[in-house]
Structures are given as structure tokens and as C-alpha cells.
């Protein structure tokens, strides 16, 4: 082990172990490790290392070290323990991993975690109000919008993005807005009903408030 790699008061081996274990001090990275990462980055032009990343997930800041190749889904599930986001195809072709990035739906498996820096990430865990289900979740239960449920977190997040942008969607709008999410159980008719019902309910509640 070279002298250089001991800079920042932590050996390279220890540092890499820390990276390997994924969660460093769960959500929070200790400043010592951050410094070591910086020092290592400067010292090694060729060596590709993990880099510091600050993510805002469900309103909370998370300080992490990630390899640049890490996807957002990997960070959410493996480093932050937010396993509500499902990864099925890992290739941008099924929608199971849908989360919101600044209120827009994206496939978290098909975006680098580093590209989410400075943006607001919302996952299925972030849309409940305490113990209360989000109205879209409730609508999926009321209208049987699921069978096995594996695709459901992604479906709910896609619906949330759709309704944020378009609170009063037509059936066609819902078909288009939900078209990036596969359901292997083919619960499609009820998924569409659930989304329409959630929109209608939200609409009638706003009308009541007025």
C-alpha cells in the first residue's frame, strides 16, 4: 500500500471496504471518508473510484459514495433500503422502477444516480402521509388495480406523475400516461379504472373545498 493512499487518515483498503459495504453510516457519510475520497480522486488519474453524491430522496438528504456507473435504482434499493422501487428488466423497458425526478416519471434503473443530484427524488415510500395511503394507492385497492402487485409501485408512481401534470385526464390521457408500465398479470383494465377514479376523487374533493 503506497503512502499516498493513506492520505486523509484512512487506508485505501478500509476505504474500499466502506464502499463495498454500500451503506456508510446508513444515510450519512462521515466527513473523514469524504475527505479520503477526494484525496484518492486527486491522486489517481487512472483509478476510477466512487464519488460523493448528495441525493434528496422523499424530502431527506442522503450523503453517499457511489461508483459513477451506479443507477438510481441501485442506490435507492441497496444503499438507502428503499425497496418499494422494483427492478424487473433493468433496461428501461417495463416501468417497475418508476420514480419521480422533479415531479416527472423516470425509470430509476435507466438513469445514473449521479444524474439525480440536485433534483428531488420521490419514491413510493415518499408519497404516503404518515400511515395514510396516498389516494392513488387507495384507488388501486378499491378498484382491484393489481394482482400480484409487483408492478404496482411503478404504476402508482407513473399515475402520480400523470395526475400532477394533468389532474383531469381523459381515458386516452391515462392510456398514454400509463403506457410506459407493463403489468405481467395484465391488470390493465383495473389499473386504468384506478387512475381515473383517483383523478375523479381528487377533483370532487377540490370542488368540495371550494
Amino acid at each position, binding site marked *: 500500500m503506497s503512502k499516498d493512499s493513506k492520505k486523509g487518515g484512512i487506508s485505501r483498503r478500509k476505504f474500499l471496504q466502506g464502499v463495498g459495504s454500500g451503506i456508510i453510516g446508513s444515510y450519512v457519510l462521515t466527513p473523514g471518508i469524504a475527505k479520503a475520497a477526494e484525496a484518492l480522486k486527486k491522486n489517481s488519474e487512472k483509478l*476510477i473510484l466512487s464519488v460523493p453524491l448528495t441525493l434528496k430522496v422523499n424530502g431527506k438528504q442522503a450523503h453517499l459514495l457511489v461508483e*459513477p*456507473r451506479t443507477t438510481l435504482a441501485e442506490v435507492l434499493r441497496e444503499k438507502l433500503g428503499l425497496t418499494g422501487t422494483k427492478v424487473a428488466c433493468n433496461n*428501461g423497458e417495463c416501468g417497475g422502477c418508476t420514480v419521480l425526478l422533479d415531479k416527472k*416519471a423516470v425509470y430509476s434503473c435507466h*438513469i*445514473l444516480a*449521479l444524474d439525480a443530484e440536485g433534483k428531488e427524488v420521490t419514491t413510493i415510500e415518499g408519497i404516503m402521509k404518515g400511515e395514510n395511503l396516498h389516494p392513488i394507492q387507495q384507488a388501486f385497492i378499491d378498484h382491484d388495480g393489481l394482482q400480484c402487485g409487483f408492478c404496482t409501485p411503478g404504476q402508482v408512481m407513473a399515475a402520480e406523475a400523470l395526475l400532477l401534470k394533468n389532474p383531469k385526464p381523459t381515458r386516452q390521457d391515462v392510456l398514454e400516461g400509463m*403506457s*410506459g408500465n407493463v403489468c405481467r398479470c395484465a391488470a390493465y383494465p383495473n389499473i386504468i379504472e384506478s387512475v381515473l377514479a383517483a383523478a375523479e376523487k381528487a377533483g370532487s374533493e377540490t370542488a368540495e373545498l371550494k
Partner: protein
Amino acid sequence: MKNFNYIQPKSLKEASDILKKKPHEAMLYAGGTDALGLMKQDIIKPEEVVNLKSVPGLNYISYTNGKGLRIGALTELAEIAENPVISEKYPILRHAALAVASPQLRNLGTIAGNLCQRPRCWYYREEFNCLRKGGDMCYAFDGQNKYHCVIGGGPCFIVHPSDLAVVLLALDAKLTVFGDRKTRTVQLKDFFVSPGDDYQHENNLKAGEIITEIQIPELPQDAKSAFVKFRERGVWDFAVVSVGAVIRKEGSKVISGKLAFGGVAPIPWMDESLNAKLPGVALSEEPVAQLVSEILKKAEPLSKNAYKVPLVRNLTKRLLLEL
């Protein structure tokens, strides 16, 4: 996926310099929706991934009456699909943007990335060391070539996968390209490269060159346009074939126009001699049938894709009759 350094340049010059210095190790990265797929499959293994999104000022849509439309390279497809000026003045562009991939991918995928995306040939995307990847044969020629080209192929037989390229070609778009500390303008129709000239690149960008803007001229008030994309399923699917048409007509007769085709050739396809036949054609059953029989006259289909020729002709006929 191999790990890489994620580089965050602050200017075009900085980005371009890195790409030029390391033409084989460095790769430009925009929305990443295509690039990440190739990296996950280890088809490309860049050491330096240069994030164009860290260069400010490349995400805009700007329309000037009488001059036309300018779109920044990093503008996402969702922005194009939702822009009210585009919907009003260039509905064909909105239509093509909406036909790409899925809502989630359109939120990330950019217009320039769409034009520069790599081929979808399944041999290319899987573990076949074919010509385009530096190997010594084309597996599609004698293999599963249902989705390959019917014209302009050889020695590689890809089709160009971009939907936007087809309509931008019919709209006579131009690109602004930055590189070597200066910019150049290139007509979209001169941008793409046939495999006969270079079977490892799909366009004529040189190392370090970056598209910064797409320009679309003003359309005449009376211009009509339409796009049709034939695909096997409603989302995520690339075009089997597609047709873009921009036509001016007087009464029912065409005065001038452009037809462009996707899914038929290694480059987005436009046939000048066909377009020269458009003026004077009456948009009714018989003259249109006559015109479309001229489409892909010189096609040389492979063993499994001859169906593309009548498909393109019939789609074009329908499109023209509905204009």
C-alpha cells in the same frame, strides 16, 4: 457495466477537448437512454463519460416568426411533445416525439441523442462481433433480417432507428455542430453516413464534435404535414417502417413536398427523384397509387424483409390521401 469517470464539463470547449483528446476512451452522454443500454451490455466500455448536461444553455425551444424554430441539443423529447408552439406550427414534430419509446424515456431522452443513437440491429446489441463492432462479417445478411434495411445497405444492413430524423428530414432541418473551437452548420440530409462509405459510424461527426442546435425553417402557411409509424406494439417499440410527409397543395393538387422514410435504409431515407415527382400529383386514389409505386423502386430486400416495400407504399398512400 464497466466503471468510468463521469466528467462534468462546464463548457462546450471543455467537453469537446476531452472527446477529441481521447476519441476511443471518451464518450459524450446526454439523456443516456441509449448510451446506458449499450454500456450495461458492455457493447461500449468508455473510460470517460462526458456529461453534456453539465454544459449550461443547451435546453431551449425558440420560435421566431418568419424564421422558424431552433431547438437546443439537450431539449428532452417530452418538452418537444408538450410545447404549444410546436403543436401549432410543427404538429408533425410533436407527433414523432410522442411516438418515441415511453413517457418515462421521453422525460430523459434528448433530441440530439435521438439523432445520434446507435443502431438497434439485434446482432449489434448482443454478443456478436459483427462488422460494425470491428468484426469481419455481417450476421444479419444471412441471418434474422426481418427488421433490417431494404435499400442502401451493404456491407452492413442496419436501419436507422431515429423517429425524429424522419420528420426533421422532411422538414429540411439543419444542425449546428461545435468542434475545434468553432461551429459549422450541416444539412440533416448530409449528416448521416451510409455503410458503403463507413460501416462503423452512422453520421459524419468527427471526434470532439457536438451537436448544439437543431434548426427548422419556417413552414409556409398552407403546408400540411403528417407522420406515421408502423410498429408491432404500442410502446417502447422502434419503427418497423415510418413515413413523414410535408406537402403544399392547391386545391387537391400537390405544389411541392417532401417524403422521408424510416426503417427502410441505414440512414433516414429521402429520395430526391421521388420528391421531384410530387408537384402536380392530384391527391386522389389513382394518381397517388401511381406515385407510391415509385417508392423504393430500387429496393433489394434481404431474405426476410420484402414485406417492407408494400408496407411503406401503402402507408404513404394512406398518409397522402388523408392530408
